[in-house]
């Protein structure tokens, strides 16, 4: 058992080692560089989408977990934030289907109809 009576005497204990921030900072730089390279080398198709989305979610996750301190927050706050975002993800799925249907009807009635 670690004796944490000393740390409790300090007023706010929410401070973390500087190394964590520098590491995350560096990782964000590297990930941004990689996502720029996706465009630089002009990857296309499924490979491009996968890489873009992977780097995007990694960056977003790192920022939220460590810079915004969600990693150290209690589950109540984390869940209150993440479930509405899951609902947005479902909304995205619905709109992908809707967009495909709209472009399908436009091709049939506007492009082929002319």
């Amino acid at each position: 058992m670690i004796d944490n009576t000393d740390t409790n005497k300090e007023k706010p204990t929410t401070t973390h080692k500087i190394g964590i921030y520098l590491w995350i900072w560096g990782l964000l730089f590297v990930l941004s560089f990689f996502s720029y390279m996706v465009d630089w080398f002009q990857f296309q198709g499924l490979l491009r989408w996968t890489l873009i989305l992977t780097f995007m979610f990694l960056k977003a996750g790192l920022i939220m977990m460590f810079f915004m301190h969600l990693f150290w927050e209690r589950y109540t706050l984390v869940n209150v934030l993440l479930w509405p975002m899951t609902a947005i993800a479902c909304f995205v799925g619905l709109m992908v289907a809707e967009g495909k249907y709209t472009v399908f009807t436009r091709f049939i009635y506007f492009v082929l109809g002319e």
Partner: protein
Amino acid sequence: MDQSTLDKLPKGFKSIGSDFGTDQTAFKGVPWGKAMMWIFLLSDTFIFSCFLLSYMKGRASTVDSWPNPSEVFALDFMGVPVPLLLIAIMTFVLITSSGTMALAVKYGYERNRKLCGIFLVLTAIGGLTFVGMQAFEWSKLIHEGVRPWENPFGAPQFGSFFFMITGFHGTHVSIGVIFLFIFARKVFRGDFDTGKRGYFTTMKSDYVAIEILGLYWHFVDLVWVFIFAFFYLW
């Protein structure tokens, strides 16, 4: 609520039920200002999501070809067009300012007044640089004939989505810069060490305000991650 009381509470998924089941305070150990900032950021997430969703739907359902962002946002560097050069620099500037903000929060909690203030000013300068480069990008595209209703590159919807999404994000950055300067002044003046009462509130100033400001600033960076991926790279 101090750390020793928090340590005695249930952990993991069980804590969700017990936290919501108690009186008055659902978010244990979270100052109300921080909880309110998170709830504001959640609502802001919905607004940005609606913009990005309408962009996705608009781009997916147009029969015209979408302008290639790699060419539209290319910048001539010594006569050679480099794809997305300005956007890449803007991304790195914003990430840098996010890092300095994280350090400002850290030094704020350690009651290191000087370093906290310096890093806040550095963050604000990063934000100003970002907004400046965005203004340059806007004027360049407007000179090339991009309008919310038409553009010379392809589908006419491109302009309205571009100006709406990057403009709304740029507004967030600008507001953030203003608050960064205000809070840097407060830090240097020592408001958070003496617990001086604020202008709009009767409550005592505390370094937790720097973390709340930090949450907003990291959120602005977070939104840029999504805009960069969906609008510029896709």
